[in-house]
């Protein structure tokens, strides 16, 4: 598998550390309530199809990257810096 780091270009996936769903970027306000926090910390979608997740270019530039990919076809559709990808 190869992932295009916005800084470094296309690299082998072994340079990256996988974290999980990109919903980790959407941290609720402290007072957002139990449900919002439970969703944020514990609940994840498991889509057969397009998913957005966070990879860390640990063996490279140190950027956190949001990777949009398809879990069925394995296509990598888009990569963006996490610092610029917050919705």
């Amino acid at each position: 598998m190869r992932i295009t780091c916005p800084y470094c270009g296309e690299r082998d996936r072994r340079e990256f550390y996988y974290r999980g769903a990109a919903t980790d970027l959407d941290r609720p306000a402290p007072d957002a309530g139990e449900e919002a926090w439970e969703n944020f910390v514990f609940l994840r979608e498991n889509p057969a199809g397009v998913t957005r997740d966070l990879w860390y270019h640990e063996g490279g530039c140190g950027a956190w990257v949001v990777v949009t990919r398809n879990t069925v076809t394995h296509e990598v559709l888009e990569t963006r810096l996490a610092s610029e990808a917050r919705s």
Partner: protein
Amino acid sequence: MRIKGKGLIDRSRSIPFMFDGVRYSGFEGDTLASALLANGVRLMGRSFKYHRPRGVLTAGSEEPNALVTVGSGASQEPNVRATVQEIYAGLEACSQNRWPSLNFDLLAANDLAAPFLGAGFYYKTFMWPKSFWEKVYEPIIRRAAGLGALSGQDNVDKYERAWAFCDLLVIGAGPAGLMAALVAGRAGADVILADEGSRMGGRLLAETYEIDGKPGHVWVDEVQAELEAMDNVRLMTRTSVAGVYDQGTYAALERVHHHDGRHPHGAPLETFWRIVAKRSVLAAGALERPVAFRDNDRPGIMTAGAVRAYLNRWGVSAGKNVTVFGNTDDIHRTARDLLAAGVHVAAVIDSRHDAPLSDDYPVLRGAQVCGSSGRKGLEAITVRRPSGEERIQTDCLAMTGGWNPSVHLTCHMNGRPTWRRDIAAFVPTPGAVPGMVPAGACNGSFSTAACLREGIAAAGEALADLGVKLPEVAVPEAEDTPYEIAQLWAVPGKGRAWLDFQNDVTVKDVKQAAVENFRSVEHMKRYTTQGMATDQGKNSNVAALAVLADATGRGISETGTTTFRPPYAPVSIAAIAAGAEGRGFRPQRFTTSHKASVARGAPMIEAGLWYRPSYFPKPGETTWRQSCDREVRMVREAVGVCDVSTLGKIDIQGPDAGAFLDFVYTNMFSTLKVGRVRYGLMLREDGYVMDDGTTARLGQHHYLMTTTTAAAGDVMKHLEFVHQGLRPELDVCFASVTEQWAQFAVAGPKSRDLLNGLLEKPLSDEEWPFMACGPVKVLGVEGRLFRISFSGEHAYEIAVPARYGASLFDILAERAEALGGGPYGMEALNVLRIEKGHITHAEIHGRTTAFDIGMGRMVSQKKDCIGKTMSERPGLEEEGREQLVGLKPVGESKQLLAGAHLYNEGAEPTRVNDQGYVTSVCYSPTLGHMIGLGFLADGPERHGETVKMVDGLRGVTTLCKVVDPVFFDPEGGRVRG
């Protein structure tokens, strides 16, 4: 039998080799299989289950039968295909799976028991008694069934891994692959052409075809010469592309020194390549399939293509009196090639009723071979015709059931091949692998001209994608014979007709599977083991599923194939893991004091990637405890020195540095004064403790964070995530400075005395109170000093640029010794911190909260921080939670054990009665008994109670008193004194 004047071998170079202890000779260019056949050796192995005598079936990497062991001792290599292994002077090969010898194999008795050993036999027979499986059945089965054996010794050969990159990877160097590479090469594309053979050319080396009026192999040499002259083309022979992975990554195994037996220093036996290609052309060719008929596995029965290959490429006739059997025109070509070489052709048995006749050899039309005889090699076959059965004497039967395109690689990314009825074969489904275009025989196009045409077209398609202009290329002249086939999978009849030669699977087994309702091809495969041997059923899977289709009354297309998985050809684990053995397993990180510690006799222990001294033995000390106890006393009474450089050090700067730290730590850091250090606690977002450490404020916008050794990498990753992902608006930067500074703890009542000799100015409590920090000059070098203490003593950590680390350690250790102290290791460090109740990752193990470790009040109420919201969940701070306590033995047993559980004194040590567990223990030389830290339900309220520690594994029960976790100097006077 070698045929004069035939073949691409070098007859001027005779090569001696050994097989089963007998000396033979062959020629340069021979494989072990061709050389043995030339020497009249037909019996090369025994089958997996029935120990049937077996000879070579094919002439390529798909060979199921002729597996041998090459070499001996540590470099012994089992299951080497004799059809792939080239001979070299000194090659020693042995047959496998036989005892005592290949000719006389006692386990051949299995063959007599065959009626009982059919599909499902193991599943049905070895069910009970249950205990027999592991002790009786499995060892016996393992001994009887199997292939070659490993030596049991460490591998002495070197293996290698490497990366390669290209625009276009061409897989296979037959006519299609060569043509594709030539076109792409001429266009200037960056090309890799990989072929599993020792020589490029594919089937062109095995046939008598001409291209542009030249013998096929001459054309191959000319193309190869042109490619070799191109800087933009890389040719890789003896390289099997074994797997296809996402985004154009290919795995390939190069056999670097198997063929010559040479071991130059540092040379790898194999190189495992990862090839990254923007586009690929698959020109993998096709594999011929045998026909299943009764006793079709005798040595001397081979695929027709193999018979031609041995004849045309190696100048070897596989027999003196050959019969040919099959369902395509290939059998007539085989007969003609043999006759032209002067080999007698006894009969051509063509299953097609409209088969062409010949004046040169007898043709039996509409006939089928239905049996064979001969003890350890073929002596005669039985042919069935409408008029009856007939026996024909023959020592070699060349058979073909047609060709299977090598679609394997097109299926590695979940693709399924498409059935083509007209050629009775599966072909690649277009687009099965993004960026891969199949061409030639692997695409179901079998004529030479079609291969050449498709090679050009495939390269053109790839080049267009790459934006490279296609050069003008003329299609060379070559034969364009249509492929006409009548389906023929299994000849009906009694007895055993083999499908999978390597795993001994017969037509009967597949039918049996269908009868027992294993009707899905995947179920049939697992029930019969069809295709599960090292050849993965390359010759037999399609025939097996055709038999299954017939038995279940479905079509072949509907029955479908099993899943093709990498690797296409066997890849040794040694190659996949090359370089990662021994010191290559993972990086070794050495501190600047490493050599000095080793010189002082310290055993080094691994801490993550780091190596740290366990203890520093003195003359006369015979156990680690003696050294450790002395080192602890030394710190408590004089001064000790310990390298703490392995702790993570992160430089944090920027206008928002304070705000950032407030967000990642539970407590406040923006309020910390410049020149001061504060202990900090970090949570995960789920509210549990992540790490702890001290952070120093070096300037208004400048902090230095320390992490534990174990969590340094994770904390850095976490900080980057919090910054980039959650708080990108904060203007703050991090840099790991772990490696920049060599840092040493100098601990003990005489620590100040020791340091005063090294610093410009004497230290005082006024200028350097507990938790002070700042720049100092250490023997003239700019350094940093922190008055912090993990041991609970008056202590400092002193840091200098790493280049001076080794030197400073020597000086500190010597000066400490002069003051009655010395260096101390991890064991003493651990005792010192347990005596003080300081936690490590033994306590903050991922399931404890700030509340649990008694630091609930460190979660500031004035601000938000990572983990704060979730740490306030009722369950995380409620009554009954297991909280940190100290433990000391009070009963007869004085032993404490980490990992043991805690129970009320009178309670049974069962799960439901569990009250907590022990995390850290040591013998405290300061207190004269063992002490421990652990977690106990409502622990802080139970100081003074007696609980029972039970270690069920080691059978230890100890009564303990619950105490405050700070065993020594609870007021903290020493640290300030």
